[in-house]
């Protein structure tokens, strides 16, 4: 390993450690904020900061180490301070820790870290006892030893259970191996069954031979009988072995199940681990918006799948940001309506049956349903006259591009967000509900299946092929007899009523593009219909038959399926068969929502379709929302390859294209488009940071219609799009 590689690896290790330490520090800060004179907090802080300092020095980050040093010294001074600790001290430490967080994140992203000098200066002023402020007095080697020493007592205090670090892909491999071993056991079981039926057959034959032998002359009879007897004994022995194998196999099955369970446990992390981060966000946003917010965690015990939490955390952050920006009123306003000046946001994590629930509540103004309605009308999602329930109206805030805020702030109001939160939650197999009480606050409730790795799936059969559907998605199942099924499927827009709700009916085989109709055998046949309730529509999917339900581990289908959202993955049944697990939401929204929309929009003029190709999700979303506000219909793609896939589905009127993208860059993509007669007429606007002349000339050669560099004026972009579309017509 070269020295550089070694350094890079060291840095990665340090970053990982630093994040852990900062998390620990953040949770100490949370405790401290509740009791400003809690001395144990100071010693905890001091210890963690010291470790961080040592690490920073090891990876040659003198600035970070200096800041950690100042913070450490400051914490130490608090420990010996005789007068009560002031809130100011807390705020200062918080600010310092925050800066360290930014520093670490910048290092992780290989960006230039933020300056720390101003922070250090603040601390040097505050620290009363200025004992040996200049660190370099201690020789480096000695300091390293010191760091080492500081780690030892730490592990001692945390002697509750020993914890080791294991790479997550190793666990993934273990999990796969365990599944493999399970499949082999099941196959073995089949062989044993087979063996046992052969044995029974052998016994039967032996018996008939015994019967037949009676008529044979006695001398020969005697010999044969004794042979037969020994064969009967042999068979008995074999039967004994078989039953032993069977019992061992069933023990193995039990152990494997247990092993599987334990492996799933290894993916679990305490929900608590994300709390400090959420607390930090709340504080930051509160400060930025000059709103006073108190963040309390009512309940956070329990574990959650690591994967799940990782995917969910940004959404939780977003909900908190929203709660502060939209929910909590300004201090003056709060005083006016005789609420305490400081707003309250609380979080609760708990288990409900097989689901994990997360609630985020604020005591702000609640959702202004009338404003939501007006906005929905403005966006053409609703007509003024339509009667909708309060809850239905509130759900409009989950629509893409929906924000009732007139002014767009840095924090929220861009309408990028709630729809993404909703999509993420849905993607994880859960759902998001909202309760709002005008004047008293809003509550967001996220319900998720407890772990993503093991789910119960319903096995459905379509044209002889079995598919899995996650049971947590299914609202209910009803049966239709053959005539009802025929009648309904012949209608263009069949509906089923269940519990006073309307469900649009489709044959799952048709939605998958396999076959338009199921095979109708006999009139007495019943067809199961699975009912699904999604946020904005209800679907009823008819299947040929059900094949039971089973616990499944959903595995990824691999890179070839990345572009396809109608499959959530595949799973192996106990007999080793692979089946595809369907993403009902995507299938239903493609098959049903489209037909609904088509019937709705057939009269109105078609909106021009813009395709936005950019590898940054932020740019994609911002551009999408902005264009949708101006009545464009938008398709997004994350790179050239993705875009090519999406082109097949819908041909856009114009393409906005980034240059630098993974897998297939903009120029390559443009080349493909311009050389394809089907697509060559689509105008392309190339938007990029790097508008080098070389790029430009190559792009113009390819027939790129317009070049714009980031950041561009939104109006310029609109004008350009309009111009190019007019030209095209």
């Amino acid at each position: 390993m070269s020295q550089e590689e070694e350094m890079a690896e060291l840095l990665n290790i340090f970053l990982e450690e630093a994040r852990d330490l900062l998390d620990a520090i953040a949770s100490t800060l949370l405790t401290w904020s509740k009791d400003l004179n809690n001395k144990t907090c100071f010693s905890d802080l001091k210890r963690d900061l010291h470790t961080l300092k040592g690490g920073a020095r090891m990876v040659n980050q003198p600035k970070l180490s200096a800041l950690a040093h100042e913070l450490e010294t400051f914490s130490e001074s608090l420990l010996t301070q005789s007068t009560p600790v002031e809130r100011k001290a807390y705020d200062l430490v918080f600010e310092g820790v925050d800066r360290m967080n930014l520093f670490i994140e910048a290092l992780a992203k290989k960006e230039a870290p933020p300056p720390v000098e101003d922070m250090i200066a603040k601390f040097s002023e505050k620290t009363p006892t200025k004992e040996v402020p200049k660190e370099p007095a201690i020789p480096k080697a000695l300091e390293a030893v010191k760091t080492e020493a500081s780690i030892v007592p730490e592990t001692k205090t945390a002697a509750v259970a020993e914890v080791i670090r294991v790479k997550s892909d190793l666990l993934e491999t273990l999990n796969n191996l365990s599944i493999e071993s399970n499949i082999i056991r099941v196959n073995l079981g089949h062989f044993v069954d087979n063996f046992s039926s052969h044995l029974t057959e052998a016994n039967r034959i032996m018996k008939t031979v015994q019967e037949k032998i009676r008529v044979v002359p006695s001398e020969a009879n005697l010999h044969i009988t004794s042979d037969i007897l020994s064969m009967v004994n042999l068979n008995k022995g074999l039967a004994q072995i078989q039953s032993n194998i069977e019992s061992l196999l069933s023990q193995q099955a039990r152990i494997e199940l247990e092993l599987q369970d334990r492996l799933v446990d290894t993916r679990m992390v305490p929900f608590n681990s994300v709390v400090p981060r959420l607390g930090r966000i709340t504080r930051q946003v509160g400060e930025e918006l000059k709103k006073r917010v108190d963040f309390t965690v009512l309940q956070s015990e329990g574990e959650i799948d690591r994967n799940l939490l990782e995917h969910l955390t940004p959404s939780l952050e977003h909900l908190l940001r929203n709660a502060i920006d939209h929910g909590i009123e300004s201090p003056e306003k709060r005083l006016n309506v005789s609420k305490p000046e400081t707003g309250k946001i609380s979080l609760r994590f708990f288990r409900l049956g097989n689901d994990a629930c997360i609630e985020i509540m604020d005591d702000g103004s609640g959702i202004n349903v009338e404003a939501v309605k007006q906005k929905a009308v403005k966006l053409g999602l609703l007509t003024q006259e339509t009667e909708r329930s309060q809850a239905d109206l509130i759900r409009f805030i989950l629509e893409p591009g929906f924000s009732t805020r007139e002014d767009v702030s840095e924090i929220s109001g861009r309408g990028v967000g709630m729809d993404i939160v909703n999509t993420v939650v849905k993607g994880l197999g859960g759902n998001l509900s909202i309760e709002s009480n005008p004047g008293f606050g809003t509550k967001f409730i996220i319900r998720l299946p407890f772990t993503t790795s093991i789910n119960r799936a319903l096995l459905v059969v379509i044209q002889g092929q079995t598919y899995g559907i996650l049971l947590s998605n299914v609202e209910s199942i009803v049966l239709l007899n053959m005539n009802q099924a025929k009648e309904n499927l012949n209608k263009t827009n069949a509906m089923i009523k269940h519990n006073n709700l309307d469900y649009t009916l489709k044959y799952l085989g048709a939605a998958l593009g396999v076959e338009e109709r199921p095979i109708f055998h006999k009139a007495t046949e019943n067809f199961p219909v699975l009912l699904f309730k999604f946020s904005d529509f209800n679907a009823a999917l008819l299947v040929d038959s059900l094949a039971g339900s089973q616990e499944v581990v959903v595995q990824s289908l691999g890179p070839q399926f990345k572009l396809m959202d109608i499959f959530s993955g595949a799973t192996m049944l106990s007999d080793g068969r692979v089946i595809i697990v369907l993403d009902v939401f995507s299938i239903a929204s493609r098959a049903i929502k489209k037909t609904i929309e088509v019937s709705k929009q057939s009269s109105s003029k078609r909106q021009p379709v813009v395709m936005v190709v950019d590898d940054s999700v932020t740019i994609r979303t911002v551009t999408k929302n902005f264009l949708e506000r101006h009545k464009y219909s938008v398709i997004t793609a994350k790179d050239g390859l993705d875009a090519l896939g999406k082109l097949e589905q819908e041909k856009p009127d114009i393409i906005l294209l980034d240059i630098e993208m993974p897998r297939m860059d903009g120029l390559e993509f443009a080349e493909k488009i311009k050389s394809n007669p089907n697509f060559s007429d689509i105008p392309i606007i190339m938007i990029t940071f790097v508008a080098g002349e070389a790029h430009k000339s190559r792009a113009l050669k390819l027939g790129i219609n317009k070049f714009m560099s980031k950041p561009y004026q939104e109006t310029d972009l609109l004008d350009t799009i309009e111009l190019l579309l007019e030209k095209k017509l």
Partner: protein
Amino acid sequence: MDPFETLLDIERNCKAYALNIPRQIVTERDWLGIGFRLANCNFVSRMRSVSEILRWPSMSTVPNAELWFKGIANLRGRILPITDLQGFVTSNPHKESSLSRILVIHFEEAFYGFAVEQVLGIERFFGEEVKPAEGLIELKDYMPYVQGAFERDQKPWIIMDFEKLIQDPDFYHILASKVEVNN
């Protein structure tokens, strides 16, 4: 001379005149690959890119998939997507027979199965030169994925580059048409 002496004599002679056992030398110029047949041509693929060879497995089809995408199979608990190599390249599907095999290619953390007509075994080429394949085959469709060819007994062995094929954007268009119902 007694018979035993004669035997010893023969042994001595044998040893004295015997050729040395050839030492197994694998030079760097040796090219090792798995040979297989496709459309009546001999192909080879670099040994290290083929991780496994399977008999025809049982598999589940993917609804609405392109003809060349045969389905997904269970490779010891792992999902293995299976592509009909000939079908993908020439859109002329391969007919499965008892000789058909699946070559498992490991590429960037994922496994891909490719169905071929027949596997011929390990082929070793000693310092033969890789020639451009253009003159050798009329199989135009294969050209984008061919690195060149070896020539042995006046017959070409075409070098198949699976990694290139796996990176072809078309390889990711599994669905035959858009999944949608128009009624």
